[in-house]
Structure formats: C-alpha cells, structure tokens
C-alpha cells in the first residue's frame, strides 16, 4: 500500500520564477493538505483540497495556488518566487476533511536563489 508520494525531492529555482510541486495521496484518501516548513520551524498550513476545491487556506499570499485532480492527486504552484519561499514543502493526505489523522509525504526541498 503506497503512502503519500511527492515530487520532485529537491528543486532549485531563481527569484521571480514559478514552481510546481506534486503530491499523490495515500491509497483510499481523498483530501490533500499542503504545509510549508522553514528551517528550524514547525510546518505551517497553506491550504487543503477536497473534491477538487480549495476548502481552507492558511495565511499565505495568492502567489500560492493549488489544484486537485479527479484521482485526488494535487499540485502546489508558487509564482514570483522570493528567497523567503525556500523551505520544505510537505503534502499530507487524509480520508475526509474532519479531524482525522494526516499522513505526510517525504517533502520537496525548495531552494530559491
């Protein structure tokens, strides 16, 4: 039973560029949440997708957008990258949007230079 997978593992981008990160949820899960984790900090909630719609959003600018596909996989897009966007981006999946256990992927390490 495959867990949550994310791609790519590492990514280096230049300021001003755009990036797309991908996530496949754990088998049987239909909800995907994205988190940003800066070095030495805990993860910060970006947004959550369920039934292909953004259901909740954290305190992140519109440069952060996402998408969920009919097979429940998801993408996170970040436009006009800033140095401060350098972080580990984590995807988590769960069954439904309620207060359930969330399973995390290994993350994508984004470095903006």
């Amino acid at each position, binding site marked *: 039973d495959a867990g*949550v997978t994310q791609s790519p593992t590492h990514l280096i981008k230049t300021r001003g560029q755009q990036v797309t990160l991908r996530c496949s949820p754990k088998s049987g899960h239909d909800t995907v*949440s994205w*988190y940003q984790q800066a*070095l*030495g*900090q*805990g*993860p*910060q*909630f970006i947004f*959550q997708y*369920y039934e292909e719609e953004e*259901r*909740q959003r*954290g305190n992140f600018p519109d440069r952060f957008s996402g998408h969920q596909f009919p097979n429940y996989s998801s993408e996170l897009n970040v436009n006009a990258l800033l140095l401060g966007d350098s972080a*580990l981006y*984590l995807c*988590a999946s769960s069954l439904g*949007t*309620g*207060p*359930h*256990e*969330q*399973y*995390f*992927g*290994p*993350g994508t*390490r984004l470095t903006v230079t």
Partner: protein
Amino acid sequence: SQQGEEDPQALSIQEGENATMNCSYKTSINNLQWYRQNSGRGLVHLILIRSNEREKHSGRLRVTLDTSKKSSSLLITASRAADTASYFCATDGLFSGGYNKLIFGAGTRLAVHP
C-alpha cells in the same frame, strides 16, 4: 502564528533513559497529535489523542492530555539512538464547516546518545 509550543526546545539524553516533551496550545481542539521528523524529512505520525481522552499508550510512547490546562506531554520510555529526531505536537481546532487543519508547534529536538 503557531498555536502549539513545545518544551523543551532541545533535549539530550543517554540511551535507556526516558524522554519527556511537553506541548501547550491556545484554543479548543478536537484532537492532538504527535509527529516525529528525522533530519528534515517527512513527518511520521506517532499517536492521536482525542479531546475526551486523558491518556494513551502506543508501544514505548505515552501521551497525556489536559484540556483544562491546554497541555499535552509525550513520554518515550527506554529511549534508543534511533529515537533521535524532532518531535512536534499538532492540534486541529473546531473550525466551521468541518474542515480541519493541523497547527504545529516549533518542535523539540531530541538527541539520544549511545
């Protein structure tokens, strides 16, 4: 802003000793969860305790929850070098519409020395 605050920020112990980490939070919750993270990689779910539970065990892990004090503790007994990691507590609040999000603290960095 982060809701949870772990204490201590860092903990260094010898193999075989017990490790205790504490977490405090600010608002009402449905559940509180503890996660482990090795070397900046993905989070591994350890245990979930519901707001109406006071204590929960899983192997060498013991979690307590005191909703009146808005605090939780994670005890790892008979620690091993492999327990070296960062440990985070995460709460999910009572949000409208039934949609939850996890709010994490800054974590406790545990080092277990052989």
